[in-house]
């Protein structure tokens, strides 16, 4: 069933992200080792792996929250270099959702959503608010628009964070463990939003341990360990027929209970 569901969502033949022979070090520590990854437009990729395997670092390299030292990252035909202009251009096209939401606590929900459109895209305030309300409706919390983040539950905050990213009309969305800081009841409401985002054809890279989500929407699951991509496969194959011993061990541990 899940395969049929995933295949409804179209993947174009156009490359959204290309990462070639990419390496990264934290000081002496070699975090990412020769990473190669190509993501097509409309593709939904789930990255999993034990903690410290470099999966968060990998997606944080894509919008330059972390700097890579060797290799190439090309996002939307823009090469990621030290050129501030390129970085700014890529960040406008790439949205990101964090584990700890990182909403701006001094601004209302609506202001959180309109800040970047107004100050980065130079959109008139009324237009930005209209778009923001539109996305807040999509994540099902338009009635909270005038509250502050501190007054919302974790699940609501994470949905606001997703809406905030979408307001910039990104072509690619990065999710860095979006449900890891949430109570079980709230995970579902965030995953629902992410599924409907996937249905809309968004290119998504998602670091998560929600294997149900991976089975349901991912085109590909990537398993990382020790800074390397160990295995890469379609979800059914990945879960039912893992190739490497490391993957088997990881899956047996997370699916054990």
């Amino acid at each position, binding site marked *: 069933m899940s395969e049929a569901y995933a295949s409804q969502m179209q993947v174009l033949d156009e490359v959204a992200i290309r990462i070639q022979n990419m390496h990264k070090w934290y000081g002496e520590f070699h975090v990412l080792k020769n990473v190669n990854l190509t993501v097509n437009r409309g593709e939904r990729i789930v990255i999993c792996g034990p903690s410290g395997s470099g999966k968060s670092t990998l997606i944080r390299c894509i919008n330059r929250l972390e700097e890579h030292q060797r290799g190439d990252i090309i996002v939307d035909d823009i090469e990621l270099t030290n050129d501030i202009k390129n970085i*700014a251009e890529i960040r406008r096209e*790439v949205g990101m959702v964090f584990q*700890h939401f*990182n909403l*701006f606590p001094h601004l209302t929900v609506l202001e959180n959503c309109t800040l*970047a459109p107004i100050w980065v895209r130079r959109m008139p305030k009324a237009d930005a608010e209209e778009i923001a309300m539109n996305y807040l409706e999509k994540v099902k919390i338009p009635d909270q628009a005038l509250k502050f983040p*501190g007054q919302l539950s974790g699940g609501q905050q994470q949905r606001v964070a997703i809406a905030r990213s979408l307001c910039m009309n990104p072509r690619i969305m990065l999710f860095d463990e979006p449900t890891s800081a949430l109570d079980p009841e709230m995970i579902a409401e965030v995953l629902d939003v992410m599924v409907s985002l996937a249905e809309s054809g968004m290119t998504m890279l998602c670091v998560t341990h929600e294997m149900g989500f991976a089975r349901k929407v991912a085109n590909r699951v990537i398993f990382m360990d020790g800074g390397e991509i160990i295995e890469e496969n379609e979800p059914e194959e990945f879960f039912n027929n893992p190739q490497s011993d490391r993957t088997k061990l990881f899956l047996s541990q997370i699916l054990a209970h």
Partner: protein
Amino acid sequence: MTDISQDKSALQDDHGPDYAPGTHPSLPPPSSSVGPIHWIRVNLFSSIPNILLTILAVWVLWATIPGLLNWALFDAAFQGDSRSDCRAVAEGACWAFISSRFGQFIYGFYPVELRWRVDLAAIGLVMALVPLLFDKVPYRRFGLYFAAAYPFIAYFLLMGGLGLEPVETSKFGGFMLTMVIGVTGIAVSLPIGIVLALGRRSDMPIVRVLCVVFIEFIRGVPLITLLFVASTMLNYFLPPGTTFDLLLRVLIMVVLFASAYLAEVVRGGLQAIPKGQTEAADALGLTYWKAMRLVILPQALKISIPGIVNTFIGLFKDTTLVIIIGLLDPLGIGKAALADAKWQGLAAEVYIFIAILFFICCFGMSRYSLYLENKLHTGHKR
């Protein structure tokens, strides 16, 4: 104490009707946990040490307040031309001394016929501050324009020029001098302090080193030393023949001094903002300056409000140090007045009066900072 335990058992006995699981309504609190009697019992008589402290506090108030009121009000002289005039009428404080010198305490040696300009500048200051400090003021927009223009208006009103008769800064004195130094110091040092704090956290080593050296140097030197440098040594560094107004030099030194302290206070606030805030701002495409202005500084400054106001209050009181290099702030005026043979021995009145002047200003700043903290609070409480 026995009361409380009785209450508890009473509550247990009268536990009300049983509700099916999941249907228990929210009930009002028991009457013994609200109201003034409850407040007095909890706050003043909750335990034996508390009862003793309450009795002690009442006794201290009873022993001191009547004497103080007698001296300051009921047995005080408000009119007279000398100390002996006062003593002829009353045993207590001789406020006639303060009223006879009141003009000097406020205006220093500013020409009497031009004092209206100082008054006008003071009214302007209030009109500029109200829209700056409070956001629900009618016509706030125009108020802010006025606030932006105010420094120039005040400059010409106080110094003269543009058709107004010029007044030398050496004539400035009294409380007006305190306000000139205090307000200029506060207004100019905050932006410099913020820039220094950002510079100290910069990725660029040269900027960072410059900021660290400046902050550590200025903080490591007493303000009095800087004021002496301003009044005497600066002449050695400047080309011969340049005249450089003493008040201006003092202002520069006070601003540098306060901005170094503010930089560290603001840095403390910046340090408290989680890294995720910068990352979220970056990920949304905001540039460094926009991220700072719209996301990081509003939060960092809010956290730093107590420290910032603390520094402001310190600066305001430190303005009295200018007496050392010969500027006559209220303390200087007071000292000079006390030397008058007619009024000898009235130091208490002078210093209490000056203390009240300063207390009003500093307490006002302190209250405003509390108001601001409450206003900017965006957590669960609101």
